């Protein structure tokens, strides 16, 4: 394997990690505030559909992105209503959202575009285009580091850089601002927040809304950045992989970057080598494609050491006497 191949795999890993990173940070905000969200998948899916559909109809990828975020926010609102206002079961609400998104996207897709649930493929301004970072051309000559910059970091679409910027931003918001302190507190002990005179409901809705926006970006990236149209069930379990990455990352933003990049890397490797010849044994393509999912199972089975979730996660807050 030469250096160029490694660079290409890393480049592809970064692209594939982006939707996972968005979704993982989305889950991080929600779960840090005490709202479990297994509906990341559904929110990404509906955002992917509406961003592709809107981008195709208007010819503007930006309007598409906004439409995707809006659609995701609507589902977030439903999850908030069910789990915060009506104190319902957060898992059931999440499952319902996944079903809803899966059904709605295909149904509306069939009726609007009549392409078997797909949207027509996007071209030109209806897709995100790669951005060359400054000096990419000139630095590419520098040995080792030059290509790393020009091949791996440069040339991605807008949303890839947004996702990367979201990592330090999330860290800063969570650990350096008043909002972050309160958000973390409400996920650990909502009663402490309540008795301090802060609205538990308001904070949790804010967290769920942030989660919606980030899932929206994840979906928009899938359909208009990574791909060039919406395809039925195109999220392919990425919402759940993001949840696994979140546990792997122990609900921390920087670890979330590493965890999602690892998943992206596995996917990139399996794309690059449909079947991998290790000399003594050849791994079949089915195995390679299953790699990210296998890692998910391994992580969820608890092979990552002790991960302590936010203490009040999953429980609706009821004022006690």
């Amino acid at each position, binding site marked *: 394997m030469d250096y160029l191949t490694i660079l290409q795999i890393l480049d592809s890993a970064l692209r594939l990690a982006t939707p996972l990173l968005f979704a993982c940070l989305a889950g991080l905000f929600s779960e840090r505030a005490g709202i479990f969200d297994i509906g990341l998948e559904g929110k990404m899916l509906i955002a992917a559909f509406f961003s592709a559909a809107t981008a195709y109809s208007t010819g503007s990828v930006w309007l598409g992105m906004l439409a995707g975020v809006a659609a995701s926010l609507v589902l977030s609102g439903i999850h908030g209503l069910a789990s915060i206002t009506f104190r319902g079961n957060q898992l059931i609400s999440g499952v319902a959202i996944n079903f809803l998104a899966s059904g709605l996207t295909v149904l509306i897709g069939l009726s609007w575009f009549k392409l078997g649930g797909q949207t027509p493929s996007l071209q030109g301004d209806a897709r995100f285009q790669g951005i060359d970072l400054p000096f990419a051309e000139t630095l590419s000559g520098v040995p080792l580091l030059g290509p790393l910059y020009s091949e791996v970091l440069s040339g991605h679409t807008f949303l890839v850089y947004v996702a990367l910027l979201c990592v330090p931003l999330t860290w800063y918001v969570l650990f350096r601002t008043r909002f972050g302190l309160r958000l973390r507190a409400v996920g650990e002990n909502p009663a402490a927040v309540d008795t301090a*005179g802060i609205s538990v409901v308001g904070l949790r809705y804010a967290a769920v809304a942030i989660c919606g926006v980030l899932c929206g970006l994840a979906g928009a990236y899938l359909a208009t950045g990574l791909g060039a149209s919406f395809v039925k069930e195109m999220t392919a379990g990425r919402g759940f992989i993001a949840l696994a990455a979140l546990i792997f990352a122990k609900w921390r933003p920087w670890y979330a970057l590493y965890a999602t990049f690892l998943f992206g890397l596995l996917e990139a490797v399996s794309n690059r080598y449909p079947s991998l010849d290790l000399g003594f044994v050849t791994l079949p393509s089915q195995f390679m494609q299953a790699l990210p999912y296998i890692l998910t199972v391994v992580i969820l089975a608890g092979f990552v050491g002790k991960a302590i979730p936010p203490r009040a996660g999953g429980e609706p807050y009821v004022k006690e006497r």
Partner: protein
Amino acid sequence: MTTAPAIELKGISKAFGPVQANKDISIRVMPGTIHGIIGENGAGKSTLMSILYGFYKADKGEIYISGKKVSIPDSQAAIAAGIGMVFQHFKLVENFTVLENVILGAEDGALLAPSLRKARKDLAALAAEYELNVDPDALIQDIGVGMQQRVEILKALYRQADILILDEPTGVLTPAEADQLFRILHRLKDEGKTIILITHKLREIMEATDTVSVMRRGEMTATVKTSETSPQALAELMVGRKVLLRVDKTPAQPGEKVLEVENLKVVDSKGVVRIKGVSFDVRAGEILGIAGVAGNGQSELLEVLGGMRNGTGTIRVNGQDLDLTGKFSDARSRRKRGIAHVPEDRQREGLIMDFKAWENTAFGYDDDEAYQTGLLMNNAAIREDAEGKIERFDVRPANADLEAKSFSGGNQQKLVLAREIERDPDLLLVGQPTRGVDIGAIEFIHQQIVALRDKGKAILLVSVELEEILSLSDRIAVIFDGQLMGERLPAETHEKELGLMMAGMTGEDT
């Protein structure tokens, strides 16, 4: 009187559905005093304070703070009115530092750093002023409950509270820590703060307060100067009839050793050593009381004996070894060996709250021959049995079809006691028999335990209430950090000595 009361409530009423939690309550709390509010569980103390702190809105009535009428729709308004509350269950974020907990909700701006700097300075000033020393950078989960309580007090003071409400503040403290708390409260009072102390412990009222108000069944039955009343008088006001505060019992007639424990060790699932080699015995016809602050291994001790946890060492009952780790180390095998267990947490381990009273009276003994008809349970027999138990143990309401959760704490405990005591065990394990139980029911429960002793049975009593240990036990052992610190006879010791042992001084040091 010329000064306006710090707090004046006029005609406060609050109903939850058909239950009238507060009925036309009026009270005046003078500034710079410690005002006690005493009453049994469910008397409406907590509801009243929740109204004052903005958790509930009163159906009727007015609130005046320093003579000015105010409305308190939420906690924010209560804090703005200068009211600080220290809840019975602390409202702290466990994995935050002391400093972060103090500023939560009282931050100065959107960014944390300036708030944290200011709070650090203010906290140092408060610590100096009121002798409330706490390490601002310690995590809450790493400090003891006494410290956590100080953090709660500091939280209120940091928000410039003039009125401090403490709800059952000593429930989790050692006697020494409680004394320290009362010193802090007096200090606060001397600085002009007004303090409301809610408790069901008569001793604390007598020791710490200037004025005391008594609540019973949602009504304020009396407000008197503490110096002009007595524990006996207060108890009668609380319960509404004469009650016996001391347990009436004859000297024990100890017989053979029923329970012998030698070098018992327990390691929990996290690998923490909970019991570090304890040895003791309990004889027939005596009550051995285990005193100690919660979390020092007494729960694990009961669980090992009751068959809910594994241990190493030797335990003999009636001279025969118990299986501590194997097939016969479960609770059912223990019952077969004549050990009955009234667990510490009756709502989680003693009862199934959603099941009916009659079903609850059969748990653990459900394989009893009398309860079977072939393959099926003989529900009629269980129910008949339950009705007898309910009558003999004076469970109220006497309705076997009510779910366990519809009974008060005291009556739930009577159900558990009836189930365990009526099996005529050789050894009764009983944990926190009167936690959350009314004074009236405490009297009855204590009588039942003493009656079982007088029948020549061995009883192991675990309680964090020192008064209960002192009045009920024939011998007292003190547990600290998984070790027994020594044994005392109740007649030859006092709360102070036991309190020191509970804090880790060995018997010889005291």
